[in-house]
């Protein structure tokens, strides 16, 4: 378990040293996305425009989250961020966004192990958060923009700047190794006797 501090924009090589189970923090521009914002980003003309803008900004990281925001003196502030399950966004939306926006890091909750081959090919990683809730909101230094507020404040797409945002845990790395795949093997071995006692058959 190594720790890394990364600065955004991220080069193609920047995430290659990160291994499943490693920790990292981020400094730079990140954007948030939930399913409704993904659909507009990927399937509309305004989405094409914003995709170009995000690429120009070098925002190579998407955070699957609906932040807790507050408007103070005409300026938006982010007070808190906790992840949404990445599987709620779905592999199709995530892979399309990674390709279109040259994303290097996808942050969320749970596993995206079905995309491990895709992550290898696109030199991108999936990461999860430390803790069920944490102080990520306090690491945000500036809200750069809130797009599509008509989707509701949490479902809107927020672009922000942060300093030492994290720690995050690498879930799937660019070699396709998945932390959850490894921990799941341990679970199957350790829970064997209670599963047998109760007659529980696992679905995978």
């Amino acid at each position, binding site marked *: *378990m190594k720790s890394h501090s990364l600065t955004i924009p991220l080069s193609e090589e920047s995430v290659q040293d990160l291994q499943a*189970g490693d920790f990292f923090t981020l400094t730079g521009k990140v954007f948030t996305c939930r399913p*409704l914002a993904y659909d507009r980003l990927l399937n509309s003309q305004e989405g094409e425009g914003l995709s170009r803008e995000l690429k120009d900004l070098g925002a190579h990281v998407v955070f699957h*989250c*609906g*932040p*807790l*925001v*507050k408007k103070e003196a005409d300026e938006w502030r982010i*007070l*808190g*961020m*906790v992840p*949404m*399950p990445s*599987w*709620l966004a779905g592999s199709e939306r995530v892979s399309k966004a990674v390709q279109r926006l040259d994303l290097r890091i996808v942050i969320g*909750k*749970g*596993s995206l*192990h079905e995309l491990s081959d895709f992550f290898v090919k696109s030199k991108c990683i999936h990461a*999860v958060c*430390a*803790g*069920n*809730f*944490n*102080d990520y*909101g*306090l690491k945000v230094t500036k809200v750069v923009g809130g797009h599509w507020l008509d*989707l*509701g*404040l*949490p*479902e809107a797409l927020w672009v922000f700047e942060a300093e030492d945002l994290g720690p995050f*845990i690498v879930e799937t790395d660019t070699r396709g190794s998945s*932390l*959850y795949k490894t*921990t*799941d093997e*341990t*679970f199957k071995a*350790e*829970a064997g*006797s*209670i599963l047998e006692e*109760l*007659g*529980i058959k*696992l*679905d995978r």
Partner: protein
Amino acid sequence: MLSPARCSSMLPQSKIEETVVNLWKKNQFDLPDDFKASLKENYEAETSELGKIHLKANIDMVEKSSKLGIPFCADTGFLAYYVVLGTGIIHALEGGVGSLEETLRRAAARVTSEIPLRPNAVHPLTRYNPNNNLGPYSPDIKFKLLPDAQFVEVTTVAYGGGPELIGSKFTVLSPTAGEKGIRKFVVESSIQLVRMGATCSPNIVGVGLGGTFDTSTRLAKEAAILRPVGDRNPDKEIARLEDIIMADISKLRLGPMGMGGSTSAFDVHVELAYCHMATLPVAVYLQCSAMRRATARLYADGKVEEMARSSWLRG
């Protein structure tokens, strides 16, 4: 006719609103004492390094949030009230029970903008978000009458998105499935809901045993949310079942965020209701790791008493 003396000790809606706003702040900024103590104990005892990191992040954040006056979890939840209304105070409520419901709705909208809370309530079809947590059944307000009691007791709770999205299950088992069948369903559900970090864990596992379709699911939720960690059902057979299922789930070693470890659940609470003899309904609700509940009683003379637990289930 009300006597002038009774009129003078009317409980004003403004007093109720102020109390309820404070309850929201309390439950959003800090964990309940029982839950926080359990979190710390489990952190000390946790055997996995990753598991310890997750639990420590929670402990640290709650310390910060209660100092700063910000919600500790940015999914501030779907807002709900459990109101135990003493029949002895109904006539002393300013504006009556209808006004009480309006006050609770107003308080929910107020804290959404003042604290602020995340506006989570949307139209199910159009997905329109009014950004104030108000809509049909939002906040969700449930009333229960308590004969002769001279107080109104309000419990504010916030349901996280995780349990509502994936952390809940309902089934009707064969009437002869028995204890083993119940254990199997609860453990199987816990695995599906927590494995590979599908939803936040550890949590309190609530089980609604018996009842009808609606009672069963309602009891599972109330068991998870309204009872403190360590509490056991007064029915000895049910209390024994709580201990057995807790031991079963601990043996899974799914750990915090499903990454493995010794803390797979903070507790297991089972509530029972009699069911039709042809059925054995079982419902499971995993309240997320962000437990938000706070309770206070208000009396006609304006006295406010903070309570360690709600009397909703054992009034």
